[in-house]
């Protein structure tokens, strides 16, 4: 059960984790990309900032020995750009997700725990944020502020918390009703103590799952903003690589490598986060079927049950003529 997974220590958590193939694949994919980003200077064949002299042949050059994935419109190595771009995308993903989950979890826990007017105020505010279309608002906000990386992170962070807030609120409502919260109040504990020691640990698994899923959403949002030209011009993210390739004739010159590489990077990370998030959710949420004791639907042998029922019915039909009150 969720409670017990949360209760056990890290090692037994890993034991449960190991059995979930989906989560393992996700973790591996995300880990590989993080590794690439961290060791970008060691891995990348070229420094993206190096001064290069290019000729016409270097623009959209085909993949070859010197440029494994070809070059882009400025003659830069696509593979190196891709590797350094992972840094930007992952940074935005992690920090924006942290901001949005922090806001969402705080709003959700307070709304759920205090109820009444506090809840009404917070959740109506959440509803308002929810109905405003994210992308146009993000475009306006980024355009109004400077398109710096930090601004993009903040904008994505403060626009993406509504779903988390609703989810955490509902979980808080459920946890709040449990008897140990009443017991905590009975020992003389105050609201803050109860939130910290009794509500939060039981909401935490949901927060973890949400963070992982929020990372993928944030990376997508960053790519979208960069693709439409609102990225930080001083850094090169995957979205920007797409933007340049798309806007500067990669398609017409048949330089698919300049388009596909950053696109695959985005798909890779988003898929990794989704797999990891869903795997974690299966592990931590008792309402999904996965359980180390049950084999799901196979546990109930419906055929056998039906056979027995039929046998019983036959027996009772045979007994009917001797005067059972039910048959009359």
């Amino acid at each position, binding site marked *: *059960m969720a409670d017990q997974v949360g*209760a056990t220590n890290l090692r037994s958590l890993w034991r449960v984790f190991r059995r979930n193939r989906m989560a393992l694949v996700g973790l591996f994919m995300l880990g590989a990309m993080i590794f690439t980003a961290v060791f970008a200077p060691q891995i990348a064949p070229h420094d993206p900032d190096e001064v290069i002299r290019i000729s016409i042949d270097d623009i959209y050059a085909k993949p070859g020995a010197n440029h494994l994935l070809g070059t882009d419109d400025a003659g830069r190595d696509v593979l190196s750009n891709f590797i350094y771009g992972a840094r930007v995308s992952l940074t935005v993903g992690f920090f924006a997700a942290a901001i949005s989950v922090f806001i969402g979890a705080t709003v959700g826990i307070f709304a759920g725990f205090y109820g009444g007017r506090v809840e009404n105020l917070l959740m109506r505010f959440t509803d308002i944020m929810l109905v405003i279309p994210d992308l146009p608002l993000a475009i306006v906000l980024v355009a109004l502020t400077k398109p710096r990386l930090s601004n993009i992170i903040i904008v994505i962070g403060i626009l993406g918390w509504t779903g988390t807030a609703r989810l955490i609120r509902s979980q808080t409502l459920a946890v709040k009703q449990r008897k140990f919260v009443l*017991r*905590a109040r*009975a020992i003389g504990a105050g609201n803050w103590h109860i939130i910290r020691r009794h509500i939060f640990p039981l909401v935490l698994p949901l927060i973890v799952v949400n963070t992982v899923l929020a990372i993928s959403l944030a990376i997508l949002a960053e790519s979208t903003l960069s693709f439409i030209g609102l990225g930080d011009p001083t850094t090169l993210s995957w979205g920007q690589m797409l933007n340049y390739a798309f806007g500067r004739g990669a398609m017409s010159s048949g330089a698919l490598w300049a388009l596909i590489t950053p696109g695959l990077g985005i798909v890779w990370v988003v898929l990794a986060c989704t797999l990891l998030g869903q795997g974690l959710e299966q592990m931590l949420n008792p309402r999904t079927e996965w359980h180390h004791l049950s084999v799901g639907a196979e546990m109930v042998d419906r055929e056998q049950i039906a056979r027995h029922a039929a046998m019983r019915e036959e027996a009772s039909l045979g007994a009917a003529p001797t005067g059972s009150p039910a048959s009359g």
Partner: protein
Amino acid sequence: MINDTNIPSTLMEVNHLSIDYVTPGRPPAHAVEDVTLTLREGEVLGLVGESGCGKTTLMLSLMRLLPAAGRIVGGEVNFMGTDLLNLSETDIADVRWKRISMIFQGAMNALNPVRTVGDQISEAITQHIPMNDKTALDNRVGELLDLVGIAPHRKVEYPHQYSGGMRQRAMIAMALACTPQVVIADEPTTALDVMIQAQILELLQTLQQKLGLAIILVTHDLGLVAEMCDSVLVMYGGVTAEYSDVDTIFNEPKHPYTQELLKAFPDLSNPRETLASIPGYPPRLDALPPGCRFAPRCPAVFDRCHVEQPDIHAVTPTHYTSCHLVENS
């Protein structure tokens, strides 16, 4: 605040306590009405009645722990000279557990599943006694677990690693953590099998004698009441049916409900006798009968019962009952 030096022999007096549950747009449900009881030091008071008759509501109100819809609409809870209903939120938090603690119905739910048992017991201690010394705190937790017959080294385990009976005993250890004067045991043996029940009750009884606790025992089990309690409060539909010492309740019950209740209890000396049951159902709190709440099911009902709610009458100075029959005789 509560005065330690001058302890009267009466610990707690509940006077004319009434509790409503309010739902917006509907008339309030009178869950408890005009309940009066006295708890002396070291006394075991049994509180019996059917499910939904207000037992738990009454107990929660003593610690001011009613759910959001609950309202205390009348009366007072006098605990060692202080009216608990008038205390501020911080003052009542001080009384909780240190003076009055509670063993909850269903211990599996009253323990937080993601924290160790020892951690939760020390949580109860540190709420009231600041303990900076980690070893002293650890020792105290071990001592408490030992008191209820759990090996102290198991304090690092989680509730799911305990059996049902152990969890209940851990709850008792937790209830004793701050050496309270009153322990409210709300159906402490529900959902446990008879052997574990006997163990738990024996434990409660020993601890009660050893520590001089006053216990309020909420239960459905009349046998348990006969065995453990000094006095009994029988509740029906939120009101006191009968309140007296245990011998009087069992030997000379005056209220028809108590009489019927005792008849519905198996008699070991006469095993062939058919068990009686009280026909009908307890009243719904939002649709109470106009007169006596027991009237629709009462075998001795007469006209007056349907129109007038009986007052609480004293049969003797220690025996109270709310029935028109008593007034007439």
